[in-house]
């Protein structure tokens, strides 16, 4: 059974002074008290009260309009920060967080110690927080609100939630009224009733909730971020500020992660370094690699380059208290063997080069051409981010026999340029042509290679391509756009140069 820690930070900052303060929210057409501080509570105000009534009861009363977006963002921040305890943190909007601490508690000296660590750490940020640990999310949710601090031993959720008031079921006003009407006051009393009876009165979902609450069923948590496949982390008792220490830490983490990857027979495709600042801020660096990576030195080199290339350098502030290296995406690789095949080694070297360049310039900026299966010359190669494409799948049709000159230029002009040419009718090569102000006399020509348009895609003309050599030895690839018998005077275009 998974162990769920439920932290429920009341996202209300303690008021600077003791003056009564309420946060108002518009519900329907009326303003209501959305949240309030301790002194307002002492004066008899309560949540959900119409704001007009509250005003009448307490004067003077400080009122702030609720900002739900800011609240949500704040909760997200706290969740980010809680990533240091476990990678599986889920929002329980609007005021709660679930931490799946399965297998993580021992790192903090047991569940009790962990609960204290989590609540105290959040409290230190200036929040009021209550928490509980239970086997299922709803049980933890209910206990954190109605019996904070409880740690339920595995399997006894039903017993633990039995004394809680029915409000802990969190099942909506209508159901609550019905239960109260039936004289049921505690969760235990509800649970004693036949489930079929409850299901008929209150719906199937109610029974499911009840079963989850009692630990008889479980609802999986949806992680906020993709869970890393593998990770290595280092905690610091005293937050670290020095870049040397951080670099040393990254070094040992990379080696640790590399060892884990090696053991699992995997390599990392998406590497993420997370720096948890003592004051709650989390900075992340993501690095994509072209092929599964396992070498610690390479990881480290990529990380360093990424760090160097950051627009705002890593700011330790008051120091980092946790650095984690995650293999967000790992995939199986063949065990690293030393290959004597020079092609294979060259390929690997190019892969590393691509990774390094991509880290430095951004992965959209480092591109490679991928062969496309089409007759249209300008569509034959498409540039895609180099890391996304696989070397092995490259299939450039080698259309010539050994010893023959290349059929097409290695690269084409960005856009074919119109030239004026003199050629014989109907499909002769140009005798001379003018391109970029220069007149060229053709001494040799081969062609035409006739390429018709892809008629299902767009309208256009059939092209006759020629390879020509000029008097001064330059070689060009040019075409006549259209056939003489189709259009009267076809134009000529320069499409590329043979080097």
């Amino acid at each position, binding site marked *: 059974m998974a162990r769920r820690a439920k932290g429920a930070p009341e996202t209300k900052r303690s008021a600077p002074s003791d003056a009564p303060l309420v946060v108002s929210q518009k519900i329907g057409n009326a303003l209501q008290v959305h949240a309030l501080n301790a002194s307002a509570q002492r004066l008899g105000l309560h949540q959900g009260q119409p704001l007009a009534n509250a005003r009448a009861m307490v004067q003077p009363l400080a009122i702030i309009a609720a900002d739900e977006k800011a609240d949500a963002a704040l909760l997200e921040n706290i969740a980010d920060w809680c990533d240091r305890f476990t990678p599986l943190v889920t929002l329980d909007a609007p005021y709660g967080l679930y931490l799946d601490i399965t297998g993580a508690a021992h790192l903090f000296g047991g569940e009790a110690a962990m609960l204290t660590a989590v609540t105290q750490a959040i409290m230190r940020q200036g929040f009021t927080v209550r928490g509980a640990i239970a086997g299922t999310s709803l049980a933890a949710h209910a206990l954190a609100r109605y019996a904070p601090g409880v740690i339920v031993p595995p399997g006894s959720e039903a017993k633990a939630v039995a004394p809680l008031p029915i409000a802990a079921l969190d099942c909506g006003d209508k159901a609550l009224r019905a239960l109260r009407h039936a004289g049921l006051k505690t969760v235990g009393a509800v649970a004693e009733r036949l489930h079929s009876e409850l299901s008929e009165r209150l719906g199937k979902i109610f029974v499911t909730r009840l079963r989850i609450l009692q630990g008889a069923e479980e609802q999986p948590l949806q992680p906020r971020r993709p869970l890393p496949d593998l990770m290595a982390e280092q905690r610091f008792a005293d937050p670290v500020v020095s870049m040397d220490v951080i670099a040393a830490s990254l070094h040992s983490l990379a080696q640790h992660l590399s060892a884990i990857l090696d053991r699992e027979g995997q390599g990392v495709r998406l590497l993420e370094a997370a720096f948890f600042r003592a004051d709650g801020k989390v900075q992340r660096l993501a690095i994509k690699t072209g092929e599964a990576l396992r070498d610690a030195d390479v990881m480290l080199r990529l990380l360093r380059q990424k760090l160097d290339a950051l627009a705002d350098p890593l700011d330790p502030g008051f120091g980092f208290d946790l650095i984690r290296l995650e293999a967000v995406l790992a995939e199986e690789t063949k065990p690293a063997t030393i290959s004597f095949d020079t092609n294979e080694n060259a390929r690997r070297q190019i892969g590393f080069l691509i990774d390094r360049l991509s880290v430095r310039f951004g992965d959209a900026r480092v591109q490679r051409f991928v062969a*496309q*299966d*089409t*007759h249209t010359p300008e569509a034959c190669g498409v540039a895609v981010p180099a890391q996304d494409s696989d070397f092995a799948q490259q299939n450039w*049709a080698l259309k010539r*026999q050994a010893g023959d000159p290349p*059929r097409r230029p290695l690269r084409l002009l960005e856009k074919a340029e119109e030239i004026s040419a003199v050629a014989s009718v109907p*499909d002769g090569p140009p005798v001379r042509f003018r391109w970029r102000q220069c007149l060229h006399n053709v001494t040799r020509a*081969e*062609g*035409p*290679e*006739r*390429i*018709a348009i*892809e*008629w*299902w895609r767009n309208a256009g003309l*059939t092209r*006759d*391509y020629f*390879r020509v050599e000029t008097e001064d030895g330059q070689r060009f690839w040019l075409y006549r756009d259209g056939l003489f018998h189709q259009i009267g005077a076809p134009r000529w275009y320069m499409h590329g140069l043979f080097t």
Partner: protein
Amino acid sequence: MSYAELAVTTNFSFLRGASHPGDFVEQAKALHYAAIGIADRNTLAGVVRAYEKWKKLEHPPRLLIGARLVFRDGTPDILAYPKDRKAYARLSRLISVGKLRAQKGDCLLDFADLLEYRRGLLLIVMPPAEPATAKPALEKLGVDTWLAASMLYTGEDRRRLRDLKKLSRETGTSLIAVNDALYHHSERRDLQDVVTCIREHLTLEQAGTKLQANAERHLKDAGEMARLFRDAPQAVDETIRFASRISFTLDQLGQRYPREPVPRGKTPDGHLRDLTETGLTWRYPDGVPPDIAALAEKELA
């Protein structure tokens, strides 16, 4: 100036040709061809339709009946045209051998099969991408063999033609011009692309270079063929010589009832009666029952 197209793939080459055999015959007449040959992949099925259309036309070009033999052993494609009725029978038998070997719809032929049935067949070898690889086949086939050349606007046509000329000199075969037509008119290119996609189970977007690069695989008139083959004018003339060697037409295939195995001096009916009586006495050694005898008499009457 005159021309005969001999490499014609109709829609009877399933999902390859994009025009009916009749369309080709009509177009050949419109272009004033001397002859048009129909040669589908390992089949003679298309020739009947071509013949029907041919009979209806006034002053049509000669219609030549053939097949394009496609081999499973890497031999280049070979167009086979029978000179006479006997050779036509051998060609039919050759295709049947291949079909009996394969699942329905397929035909598995080896070069050795052709050697067995080649007597009376005029053969045109379609050279593969690397012409020299056709050399062994050309040398083995010997007489009545031609080497096809085509100018399909691949960009290297003239260089290829030069290589083919050299090959034909080395092997003592004559070069013959073909346009390897897949459709009778260039407008059919779209349809040909579509049937190619169906054959390859691809969409137009995916098919890419499996499609033809241009729309040149149609019937072209004699003037245009002569212009294309200006480096080898004899190859165009050779088509007329080739056609003149063929005397076979579909008219020669009448109903030919097989000879019946009747002993000399007997009529077929009399022979049947004798056989029946022998059978009856074997079946009923103790005398034929009267109802059976009546039944036999009724059937024989």
